[in-house]
């Protein structure tokens, strides 16, 4: 599942265009993003507060089992990396 500051309409548009079927949640005021210490203040267009890219693999007990914080917005976790991390859990 994915989280951004985008309102639900924008995420709906993205899912429709990209064909995403996973859950995409909206955090327009960056409340959860702040709680997770992932706020990139003024990082968005027009100086909006947005989330920095970050990926967490959380097991069913709510514990982080794998994490990725990129240092370069141009370099993100790839789908195969994330799937490999998920498969390595049991």
């Amino acid at each position, binding site marked *: 599942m994915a989280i951004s500051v985008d309102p639900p309409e924008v995420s709906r548009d993205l899912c429709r265009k990209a064909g995403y079927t996973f859950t995409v949640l909206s955090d327009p005021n960056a409340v959860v993003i702040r709680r997770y*210490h992932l706020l990139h203040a003024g990082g968005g267009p027009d100086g909006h507060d947005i989330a920095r890219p970050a990926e967490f693999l959380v097991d069913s007990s709510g514990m*982080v089992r794998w994490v990725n914080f990129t240092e370069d917005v141009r370099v993100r976790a790839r789908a195969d990396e994330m799937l490999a991390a998920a498969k390595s859990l049991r």
Partner: protein
Amino acid sequence: MPDASKNRENWAVWVGSLLALVAVLCNVVFFVSLPGLWAIAWLSMLLSVVALIFLGLGLKHAFGRPVVYRRKILSSVLSLVSLLLVGAAIFASFSARAMPTSAGAPQIGQSVPDFTLADTNDQPVSLAQLLAQAANDSKVMPAKSVLLIFYRGYW
């Protein structure tokens, strides 16, 4: 003025321009999700620096010797364009890395805080709900887990 010397002056500026162009084009590669992209990020910076060195050498040769006027114009124009390209490449590299370190973010072995947010249909969805779903259905994700992806947004 021997021809060899003229060619050499242009050579450095042309190499500098080419490197500057490649440094900028490196950024196009990021639209493809491939392993080793972090290396491309550094390559772009390295190429920019090397391009600057070549441009400097080329200009030094062009203006340091009594060469034909046309060559100086060409060298200057090429250098100016290349300088803009190098500037763009360096700016892209710095702005791409201008991000908070997020030292307080959840780390491996820590529990993540629960939350409830609206999905694309404006329905509230909680992490606990998704975790419960994952625990009951291993087809959603292997190993009964949930992948949390925080992203900058769609624009």
